[in-house]
Structures are given as C-alpha cells and as structure tokens.
C-alpha cells in the first residue's frame, strides 16, 4: 500500500525525502562509475515494462480477488541494487504524478518503502546468499518468495511507522500493525511467486540475456552488510534528529501523538460498545505494556498532559458557528471565482491573455 500525503506530517515526509534523495544520488553515482552504456535504454524500457505489467491483473489463488505486482524484487535481481533502485524510483515517480498514487510529499516515503528494502536490504542480504552458486529454479523460487515477503513486511511496517509518527491518524500502533502485516504477507507470497516465475521463464527461454545484463550492470562489489547497516544508522539518526527537533518546536504535535499511541490519559468518553471492545482488544495486545509512556493520574506528567488537553482546540460553540459560516462563505466565493474565470475564458475567445 502506498503512503498518502494526507496522513503525513512535513517532518516525516522531509526526513524520508532526505533519505531517498541520498540513496538516489548514491545509486546514480555508482551507476555512472561502472555501468555499461547499453543499460541506459534497458533501464528505461524495463521501467515502462514494470509499469505496464502492474496494470495486468491476475486472480489471487484461493481468494478470487485480483492483484498486481510491485516489481521491486524483479528489478533488483535482474539489474542489481543500484540500477534496480533507480528504475523502481522512476516507476513510483510516474505513478505519483500520473495516478496521484499517494502524493508528491509521500513519494519520498514510497520510494523508500518499495525501493530501498527490496534493492538494498533484501536482495543483498537474503536473495543473493540463497541463490549464490546454485541458481536452480527451485532455489530461485524459494529465495524470491522469502525475499518478497520480507521486503513487503518491511515496507508495510514502514508505512505504519510513518503514519504513527506523523500523528494524523488515530490508529493505535498494534491495531495498525495487525491490519497491515498479514495482508502484506499474502501479497508478498504472490509477488515472490511471480518474481520467481518470470526469472525462471527468462532463464529457460533466453539464459544468455541474464548473463549479458549481469556483465553490463553496475558492480556491487562493495555493498557489504557493514555499509548497509551503516547507511541505515545514519538515516535513523538523521530522522530521529529531525523528528525530535520538530517535536521540541511543536510539543503538541509529536509528543501528543506518541502519547496517544502508547497510552491514553483518562478522558471523558462517550460510551459505546465498539469503543469498549476495541479498548479491551488494545489492552490485550498492548505492545510493551510496561513502557513508561503510560501516564498515570496524579503524576506531574499527567498534569501537563491534562494542561495540553485543555489547551488543545477546545472549540466552543461560538467559534464553531463562525467557523461553519466562514467556511461556507469562503468555499462559495472560491467556487464563484472559478466559474467566473471559466465564463470569461469562454467569452474571450482568441484574444485571451489568461
């Protein structure tokens, strides 16, 4: 699933854009350094291939619902991590623009979730070691499935983290995780099978193709585990730094949402059966139950929490009325402006300046 702008905060979006851009710049550098020039048209049309392939639906066995492939694993296997990442990023970029899949700010997160994990983590750490030296079709199938599943789990988990840290959604951590991970397990399985299917298909039909690409693609000799973890650490520190800076600037925003996620202060609540059920489920599946985020009443923390609660948009009836009137007026005027401009354009004919 793609991350959406409307669930994102600028801090999280910017942090992931920073990570993604550095990865892109690094990959481009690596490609320029050791890639054969014939890869340039190949990468381009393979991107178009992934795009077209994503539009072909197939029925997922057992469920009857239709699905489509992501493509990150196929690209990583055929093109290697650097070129594969660039191609995946380009596909996601086109999707963001032409299909508004997620949005422009969220594009940074999406390229990270769907590109970094398959190309820089799963491929070198899982697929390659499993397939090295013995690339029988069975090995490839096993490696592909495990890789795709892990890659998608990481991606889905990232979406959860990105949403939680943005603080726009009320979904608690555990509930969100329980929703996302199982679904992506199934998707990962299918993706892995399709990846294996395509690779084995190509090996069977034209094995020399894979060989010739392998010799033309950028070298991966120095992509060691140390480098991968080192890179991740840098990004984590950077992200943590950016987020905490934002948190200190806007205490309400981030801290409040984290407090909301891991433990709620007592609130006056509307009683409802669904509410109660969800609450009990939450308590039963509470992640890190003895985490110190839970604010007990009477503690200095809770006093501050109480303060921040009341200082929060305590919207009184007065302001709400003006809010509704004002909104209606503004909306109507905005629409009127649009209609007027359209009419003017139609009348103006050829002598239009605007």
């Amino acid at each position, binding site marked *: 699933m793609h991350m959406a702008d409307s669930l994102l905060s600028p801090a999280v979006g910017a942090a992931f854009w920073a990570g993604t851009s550095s990865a892109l710049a690094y990959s481009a550098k690596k490609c320029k350094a050791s890639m054969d*020039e014939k890869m340039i048209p190949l990468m381009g049309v393979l991107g178009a291939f992934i795009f077209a392939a994503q539009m072909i639906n197939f*029925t997922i066995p057992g469920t009857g619902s239709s699905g489509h492939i992501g493509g990150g694993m196929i690209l990583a296997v055929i093109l290697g991590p650097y070129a594969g990442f660039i191609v995946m990023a380009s596909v996601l970029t*086109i999707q963001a623009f032409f299909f508004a899949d997620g949005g*422009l700010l969220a594009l940074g997160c999406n390229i990270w979730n769907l590109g970094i994990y398959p190309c820089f983590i799963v491929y070198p750490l899982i697929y390659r070691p499993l397939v090295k030296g013995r690339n029988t079709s069975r090995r490839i199938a096993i490696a592909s499935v495990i890789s795709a599943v892990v890659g998608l789990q990481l991606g889905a988990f990232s979406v959860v983290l990105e949403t939680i840290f943005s603080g726009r959604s009320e979904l608690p951590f555990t509930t969100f995780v329980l929703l996302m991970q199982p679904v992506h397990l199934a998707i990962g399985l299918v993706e892995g099978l*399709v990846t294996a299917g395509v690779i084995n298909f190509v090996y069977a039909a034209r094995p020399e193709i894979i060989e010739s690409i392998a010799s033309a693609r950028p070298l991966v000799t120095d992509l060691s585990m140390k480098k991968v973890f080192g890179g991740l650490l840098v990004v984590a520190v950077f992200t943590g730094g950016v987020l905490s800076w934002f948190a200190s600037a806007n205490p309400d925003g981030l801290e409040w949402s984290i407090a909301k996620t891991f433990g709620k202060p007592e609130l006056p609540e509307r009683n409802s059966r669904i509410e109660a059920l969800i609450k009990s489920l939450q308590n039963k599946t509470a992640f890190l139950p003895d985490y110190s985020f839970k604010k007990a009443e009477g503690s200095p923390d809770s006093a501050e929490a109480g303060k921040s609660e009341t200082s929060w948009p305590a919207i009184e009836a007065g302001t709400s009325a003006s809010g509704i009137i004002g909104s209606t007026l503004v*909306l109507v005027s905005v629409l009127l*402006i649009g209609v007027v401009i359209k009419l003017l354009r139609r009348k103006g004919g050829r002598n239009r300046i605007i």
Partner: protein
Amino acid sequence: MSFDEQYFKLGYIDTLSYKNTFIHRLDPRTKVIATLAFVVTVVSFSKYAITGLVPFFLFPVLMFALGDIPVWFILRKVLVVSVFAVFVGMFNPLFDSRVMFSFHGLQVTGGWISFLSIILKFLLTISAALLLIATTSFPGICHALRKLGVPELFICQLLFLYRYIFVLMEEAMRMVRAREMRSFGARGQGLRTFVSLIGTLFLRTIERAERIYQSMLSRGFTGTMHIAKAYRFGGSDLVCLAVTGIALFILRTYDIVGIIGKQAERMF
C-alpha cells in the same frame, strides 16, 4: 479499473498536459515549486485543522479554471485513489471520542474532525498533484527536476520510461486482449498464464532495448545523453511564484475563515 480504462486515462491526462493556456505556458519550474510548497503547507496543518484548510481550495479551483482542465475527470481520479487514506482515516472516529464541541445539540468528537481534516488534506494534495501533471508536460516536469538538482541519470531514466510507457502498454494490451479472447468469460487468469504473459513481455522488452541501443549507436551515441531544451523563466513566472508564496503564507498564518465568519456573524 480494466487495462483499457487505465490506458485511456493515462493518455488523456498526457494529452491535457500539452494544451496551450496561461498555466500551461508557465515555466515548469514555477509549477513544480508552487505545487510542492502548496502540498507542504497543507500537510503542515495540525490533525484537527478544518477551517484553516478551506481557503486552500482556491488554488485547485484557479488551476482548473485557468488551465481549462475538466473538473469531473480529475475528481473521478481523486476518488479512485482515496481508498487507503479513507481506510486509515475512518478509524479516527472510532479511537478518538473526546467531544470537541456541540452544535445545536449535535456532539462532534475529535475523531470525526480529524477524519474530515484528513479528507480535506487528501482532496487538496491529490488534486494539486494531478493538476500539476495536467498542466505541465512530463518532459517539462523532468526539466524542472533537473534544474532542481535531481541526478542526470535519473532524469534520463524518467524520460525514457515516459517515452516507452505507451508503447509497452499497447504491447501489453494486445497480449491481454488475446488472453481475454481465449478466456471465455473467466475473470482474470491464474498465476501461470499471468507469469507467461509477463515473461514474454519481459523478453520482448529486452529485445526492444537492444534495438533502441542499436539505433542510438547508429546515430553516434558514445555514452552521454544530450538533452537540449530551452525553457525560459519569464516575468509571469516570477509574479506567479511570488503571489503563490505570499498567499500560502497568509492562509497558513491567519484564520481567514474565522475572520470572515465572525464578520458575518456580527452583521446578522
């Protein structure tokens, strides 16, 4: 959405981007920067913001009107991609039941407000992205990105991808149609057929890449792509950027709706 529908929609929005209106004629850099600034501003609103977001609809409305973009087409696309955001957002009312305010006896909880906020942000950001591509040709956007510092190789990749999307989609479409005609009603096909379809398309793609490389070599290619294009950043671009920047700042900082609303209340 069936394959044919997606193909048509993609082609349609691509055609729209080559229209000739004031907005279309602006330098792509202007539009890209303005759109990004718009999105970041909208997203920066807190989770309970509603009235603050309303005036921002001025921007998409202006783009629609000045750029002569069909509203219904864009709205339909917005609806189609709303699934994830709506799905996540709709849990908000379930988990946040603090009553924010009551209006004529109706109690509104924080959850519904934040849900509405997500919806509004969604409408604004997604239509902004679609309007950008509807008023700026994709090569133009790539040009803007290049000037904004995106690596040359990636720009090259984007342009190549864009160029061959329609070619590959047509190729895929022919194969999909052939499959449909031999399917006699069964919706979709098993994984096996899918894999051979994709696998064949993959092989053909590689062969095509080989031929493209051949024609590149025939015309003297030695490794560097020269992309020659002159966009001129003009006076209207500066004006638009300045106006957008100021407007975004004002709308973000001042509660326009509140001001207008209070004035209206006073008058009645």
